[in-house]
């Protein structure tokens, strides 16, 4: 039992040890670079451990009704930790103190806890541990007041979301008398006014955390006010973790018709709103924010599936989306030096930074859903489950919404390949070698996703 506790939660223990070591390094004024190196080692070790556990088919019920390691837990943790690793490598070049790495590790620890949970207590703890360090990351080391303003808005709305989730949980607790997720799912399916009210309230809380349409107002402010590697973190890991938390709760069970209609309306509205508003944006981070609202819409759209393809589709979509966001932000920081955010800086970038431009163009087209890139396959997986569950009209409407989205993504590709009238500086930013290694690693995974889209399907099946 004890060895299970250590081995089963080994990635979490590694991150915890990392946080403690980093605290010691900070206290004894160790080398700043050491933080980054230690983080990379710990994250890579965690990924290796998870890969080994996955190939052995290791599952264990650690704390009954609270923490369970099943195949979804292994795969989801691998996805989150992998994205965290790639993001970490890309951020090695920024002169971040050990605090940044501590906060990043804590946030990832929270995300991992969410994926392990079989009960709402650990899910709630994980969600809190995911968001709190993000607030601190947004303001640490940044002198501008806009960062604190964005962080405060994010904090208030995130806390409201948490309160909503908790309130819904208390209603569920009132109906079932237990805080285990499987009992919750059984009750939700049984119907009843209080269960449906609870589900809707919990969903509202999660939608607020993921910035889906009516609850999206914090996203543009929060994303655009911070430095780009933090934007990448917010847009990729946190969003993916929230979506996968929903998958953890709802797994493959079909939701009731009322809840499904609510989700359809909100996600389609989100897709349209995000895509339409992104067209007018002139700054990269704001564009990313609005497009992430649309992507949250696509991900929530997958929840209405009743054929059981939801888990695989959302795992694939969340990982592809997080990966492309990280690579796109990294390439943008390579092309546009300093902290400038203007999309006009991208004009004619192909002439001065050919490889970065091509990668950025590929990521952006993948987010637009152009075949044969992984973004298209991700959308295909979602839409095929939705259509197979019988919801054809919402799917066609969502297609139209995604078509609108192609416009601003094409606009970015246009800027990259247009011939600029003013030749931009062709200089290499300092420390870009590290960013390149992160981008290279990300691109390899990107190509793997393109060649083997069925990877999550085969991994989810019990060996």
């Amino acid at each position, binding site marked *: 039992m004890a060895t299970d506790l250590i081995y089963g939660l080994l990635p979490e223990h590694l991150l915890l040890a990392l946080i403690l070591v980093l605290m010691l390094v900070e206290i004894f004024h160790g080398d700043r670079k050491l933080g980054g190196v230690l983080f990379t080692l710990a994250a890579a070790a965690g990924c290796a451990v998870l890969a080994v556990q996955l190939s052995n088919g290791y599952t264990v019920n650690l704390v009954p009704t609270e923490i369970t390691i099943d195949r979804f837990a292994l795969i989801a943790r691998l996805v989150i930790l992998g994205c965290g690793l790639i993001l970490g490598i890309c951020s090695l070049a920024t002169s971040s103190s050990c605090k940044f790495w501590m906060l990043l590790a804590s946030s990832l620890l929270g995300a991992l806890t969410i994926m392990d949970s079989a009960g709402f207590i650990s899910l709630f703890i994980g969600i809190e541990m995911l968001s709190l360090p993000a607030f601190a990351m947004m303001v640490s080391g940044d002198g501008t007041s806009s960062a604190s303003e964005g962080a405060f808005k994010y904090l208030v709305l995130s806390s409201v979301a948490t309160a909503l989730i908790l309130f819904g949980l208390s209603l569920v607790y009132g109906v079932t008398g237990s805080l285990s997720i499987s009992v919750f799912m059984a009750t939700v399916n049984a119907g009843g006014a209080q269960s449906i009210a609870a589900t809707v309230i919990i969903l509202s809380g999660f939608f607020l955390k993921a910035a889906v349409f009516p609850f999206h107002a914090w996203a543009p402010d929060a994303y655009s006010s911070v430095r780009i590697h933090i934007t990448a973190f917010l847009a990729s890991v946190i969003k993916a973790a929230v979506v996968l938390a929903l998958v953890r709760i709802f797994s493959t069970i*079909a939701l009731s018709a009322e809840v499904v209609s609510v989700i359809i309306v909100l996600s389609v509205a989100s897709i349209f709103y995000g895509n339409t508003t992104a067209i007018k944006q002139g700054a990269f981070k704001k564009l990313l924010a609005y497009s992430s609202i649309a992507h949250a819409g696509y991900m929530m759209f997958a929840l209405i599936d*009743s054929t059981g393809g939801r888990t695989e589709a959302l795992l694939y979509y969340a990982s592809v989306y997080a990966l492309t966001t990280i690579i796109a932000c990294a390439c943008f920081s390579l092309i546009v030096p300093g902290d400038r955010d203007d999309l006009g800086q991208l004009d004619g970038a*192909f002439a001065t930074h*050919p*490889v970065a431009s091509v990668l950025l163009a590929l990521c952006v*087209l993948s987010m637009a859903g*152009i*075949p*044969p890139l992984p973004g*298209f*396959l991700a959308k*295909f*997986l979602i*839409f*095929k489950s939705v*259509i*197979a*569950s*019988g*919801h*054809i*009209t919402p*799917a*066609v409407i969502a*297609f*139209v919404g*995604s*078509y609108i989205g*192609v*416009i601003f993504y*094409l606009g970015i*590709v*246009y800027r990259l*390949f*247009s*011939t600029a009238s003013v030749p931009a500086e062709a200089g290499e930013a300092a420390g870009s070698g590290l960013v390149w290694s992160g981008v290279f690693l990300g691109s390899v995974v990107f190509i793997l996703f393109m060649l083997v*889209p*069925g990877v999550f*399907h*085969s991994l989810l099946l019990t060996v």
Partner: protein
Amino acid sequence: MLNPTTVLALFVLPLAFALILPVMTERGSVLPRIVTMVGMLGVLALSVTIFVGYDGSTDPQLLAVNVPWIASLGVNFHLGVDGMNIYLMLLTSLLFPVVLACTWKTAHADKKLYLGLLLIMETSLLGTFLSQNLMLFFVFWEAVLIPMFILILTFGGENRRKAAMTFFMYTMVGSILLLAAVILLGVESLHQTGSWNFEFSTLYHLHLSTTVQMFVFVAVVLACLIKCPVFPFHSWLPLAYYEAPAAGTALMAGAMSKMGAFGLLKLAIPLCPQVSVAFAPTIILLAVISILYGAVLALRQQDFKKLIAYSSLSHMGYIVLGIFCLQQSSIHGSLFQILSHGVAVAGLFLMLDLLEQRLGASYKQLNALSIYAPRLAVTLMLFILASVALPLTSGFTSEFLILFGGFQHGLQLFNTGNGLLVLVCVILACSGMVLGAGYMLRFARAILYGKANEEIGMKDMNLRETIAFVPLLAIVVIIGIWPYPVMIKAQNAVEQLTALAAGTQQVQALPQTTTTLPIGGADGH
């Protein structure tokens, strides 16, 4: 030499060369161009081998590559040569080296981006034509758009941004509905066979209800008519064809437009036979309007490039007309027209580009070419005659077969009391041939003859360009004089298609399969 590796090599070769290109660092040297040319010629050699070795009775397994891609969803990487796509394979692999040879000395060909885009486009086009899996077909159908978009954007004329965006967004509209139709077909195969399967061989044997057939037919036809383009959906044509660089226009008119026709042959008719037969008169009407509209607009054009663009609109109408007459002769005619028109229009656009390379923008005021550059004039005249459908050229073989099949179909419908519409349409299409002769010969007279201006000195066609045009002219002449050995390769496929449409192969009773899924069926809520 016929084995699956040949087919796989056909697909992989351009991609591999495109990936080698960025590694070459010389800018302005000839090396990237030579390497690209080597790659394209390799593809041409493979494709000619397959073409010559293939006859109607070749075992399909011998020329197919089938690798599971998303195994749980029945999406396989399945490329295969069959009677339907063999002409298109030859056309595509032929056009690319010719295009590169003709644009060898332009400023574009210096840039590795240009060469890389051409190679990626070749891979995507070959993938579309060779694919035997519906999902793979869709993936490549869309994937062709990206390199063409970037090509127009980077190397096009003044109005290139608008042209590129219009081209991309307009074509994508059809693709969205097409994606919904593709997924719907997958769901149907899930209901009927118990597992997701996108292989064409499975999908052709499904029993599709009329509603599903309608939706799929409308979606596919819309996407294909936008791609060709055909009358109501042609507004992107003048802009895109005019603003694209010469290589882009030649490839768009020569190969990409044929994707639309291929989609009709491969998707619309076999998957929805009953609805196709019912809607055939409407599509024939649209095709004929397209023929006449393109011809009338071409008659009024002063700009040569726009004239050829509208003539392309007109000729694509013939292809669609031939396909929807659903007779063996007309489908053979359409396949020949695909090959002939592809070659002829690419040749015409490339010749115009040769003139532009020599004279700059003032090529539009050119006349009396036959005095300055006889070889150029003769080649241009041969392509014009192929376009006009003079007997002994491939244009005549194709248009004759199309109109012959059209008359057969029209008379059939008339005799069974289904009205005069198709017959009238085909008669109008014949008048389209006269109009075609009109604008083409006017173009020939304007550019080739007339009073010579003594100051203009112009170089005639050099060796490289001559060699480039020889294969195109060879196809024009061979199919014009002796089409039978080429025709026999497609015979089986065409027979199957017409039998499907005529209903002899379709199981008559539609068994009412009650689905066991409690959630609503694929028809909607």
